[in-house]
């Protein structure tokens, strides 16, 4: 059967590489992280970032995983994740379907701040804050998207950045439904 134009567009769209955010609700069980990540390993999908934390419901964890892959692949992967016995549900979002943040920490020598105000301006103008001041170094904290935290890194580099670290992405959907209610609905569905 010949493909229609629309079908071709859909196929192309499905095969374009982009970032997807997976949000996975699970039991808090040891070894489960391994069970989740081998699903990616097996398909040679690299995990861009990962974060695991307990939700507002005791005993229920949320994994937030960012991967770069195709729509077609992510749809298959997410079904595999849902199949894991200790997983309640897995959602897949594109970045415009969620609110998300990452947090970055920068360690710079304290003397930079003693030599004039420029560095302090940088911190203030970039929505960052000073987390700690030690005799030798200062730690700056910034919350933002990757391009923003990276931007500040570039700006701080001339002053000498000793260390930089960025967290995995954490995200929330645009739905009004909390975890508890969602789990209840899931339960009722089956």
């Amino acid at each position, binding site marked *: *059967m010949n493909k229609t134009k629309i079908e071709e567009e859909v196929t192309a769209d499905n095969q374009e590489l982009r970032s997807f955010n997976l949000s996975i609700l699970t039991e808090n069980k040891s070894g489960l992280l391994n069970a989740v990540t081998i699903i990616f390993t097996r398909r040679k999908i690299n995990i861009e970032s990962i974060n695991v934390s307990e939700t507002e419901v005791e005993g229920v964890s949320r994994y937030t995983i960012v991967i770069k892959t195709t729509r077609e692949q992510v749809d298959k992967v997410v079904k595999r994740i*849902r*199949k894991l016995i*200790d997983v309640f549900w897995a959602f897949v979002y594109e970045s415009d379907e969620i609110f998300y943040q990452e947090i970055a920490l920068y360690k710079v020598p304290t003397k930079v701040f003693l030599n004039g105000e420029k560095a302090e301006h940088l911190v203030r103008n970039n929505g960052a804050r000073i987390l700690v001041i030690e005799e030798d170094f200062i730690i700056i904290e910034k919350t933002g998207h990757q391009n923003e935290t990276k931007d500040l890194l570039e700006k701080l580099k001339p002053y000498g950045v000793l260390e930089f670290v960025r967290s995995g992405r954490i995200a929330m959907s645009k739905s009004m439904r909390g975890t508890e209610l969602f789990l209840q609905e899931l339960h009722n569905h089956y």
Partner: protein
Amino acid sequence: METLVNEKQITTAKKTMSGAEAVICSLLAEGVETIFGYPGGAIMPIYDALYDYMDQVNHILVRHEQGAMHAAQGFARVRKEVGVVFATSGPGATNLITGIADAHTDSTPIVCITGQVPSSLLGTDAFQETDVIGISMPVTKWNHQITDAREIPEIIAKAFYIAKSGRPGPVVIDITKDAQFASMEFEYQKCSKIRTYHPVPKIKEEQLQQAASLINKSERPFLLVGQGILISEAQDILRSFIEKANIPAAWTILGLSALENSHPLNVGMLGMHGNYAPNLLTNECDVLIAVGMRFDDRVTGDLTKYARQAKVIHIDIDPSEIDKNVKADVPLIGDAKQVLEALLPLVSKKRHGPWLKRFKDLHKIEVEKVITPALYPQTPGILMGEVIRHISEATKGEAIIVTDVGQHQMVTSRYYNFKHPHSNVTSGGLGTMGFALPAAMGAKVGMPERPVVAIIGDGGFQMTLQELGTIFQYEIPVKIVILNNGFLGMVRQWQQMFFERRYSFTEMKNPDFIAIAGGFSIQGQKVSDRKHLVAAVKEMLGHPAAYLLEVVVEKEENVFPMIPSGAAVDDIRME
């Protein structure tokens, strides 16, 4: 004791016992009658506890842990029960892995209990410590390590529920030695619910309607029978369904025996060495109804040229199978039996005369070109097909047939005429050579009243032949047929067809198989001449104990038809 282990009684009185004894009592509470296993240091407390329960549970000491797995698989497949395996830590557990992977691919319910080093030694590279949880994770449906004896009943109950429900699969429970020794209060409660797990999805009414409408409008419907039919015991409803709308049905290798071969709507086997008509007509049907099958590449060949003209209705209990390989126009997620029951009243009676005739006409070509020459050969040497024909005739299609992997497997699947469901046991998805001998042994233990015939290549036999020892010790009257072509036949066929006959390491100098069997007091005979074949098959089947029949077959026979790897289903070759 009775009250503790009575299967029907769900809750039981508490009793103080060791973790090891709790393992045995939990298994008894699940109704387990047979365990296949092999002891070692880390599982010794469990074996010691077993010693006191020998009158209540049958333990079979295999000769290699892989054999325990395959035996449990054979048992599980014919009994429709969970197979149970014991192994020790380290090498005992790693020896299970091939079998676990096989059970995972072929959705076979198994609970494996492995001993583990004491919890204080975990992570220290202690003697015979391996990360069983880590190693088995990709090939199990679920696994869990127990370090606290009190967890034992609950986790075993969960393991059985998970292994058996929904799409079945293997589960590993790894129990540290200290947990086996520790004392606990035993109380057993069967598991019927896990809050994160929903094994049987609800069927969507709207999709049922859509499916029925497609089927009712269809002029050339075609149904694919997968193992899901057997797992959900949907074989009767399947028959009513296809008979009502006169839908031709073909099967995957694991769907074989769900529909008797003699059924007029059974149009044969799918895939690489399947029948001509169903492969070719996959690309002519207008509605393809796939039931409990996963569109394996050995079935579909080139996906870009697979049933592109057809509307696809995919019925499966596992949502992750939908759109994995073939895009479904109408997915129907649910238990195959429930779905077919719901669908049956919605489909109209149809005849589909001209469409069914297409299958018949194409089949005639295959009969003439391939089937007759395979079953009634004129060749000097014996061909595999005629051996299977004789076995099929002599057993009247009543036997449980267990095949290994290779040419003989394809030939057996093509030519044995099955009458009853759950009668075909083979390693389909993983294609594990060495599967058949132990699996046949397990099947015979599971179904002692039915004849069990293992059909094995000379290569595969030598992968697990040590299980002759188990067959000998427990006097398991399984019939073993070695189709000896002196080659790793299937690989040789590929070398001949696609690698210019460069037979790189596929020819084998074989031992005296009859003498080997003799070493285990198993009788047998070797047949090289066609004129002795019928009598030999008869003698084997009539023999009261295990028997080994070696048939020397044509060295360079090829299995046809064949869809070359990566080609389209309609590129099927007859020679």
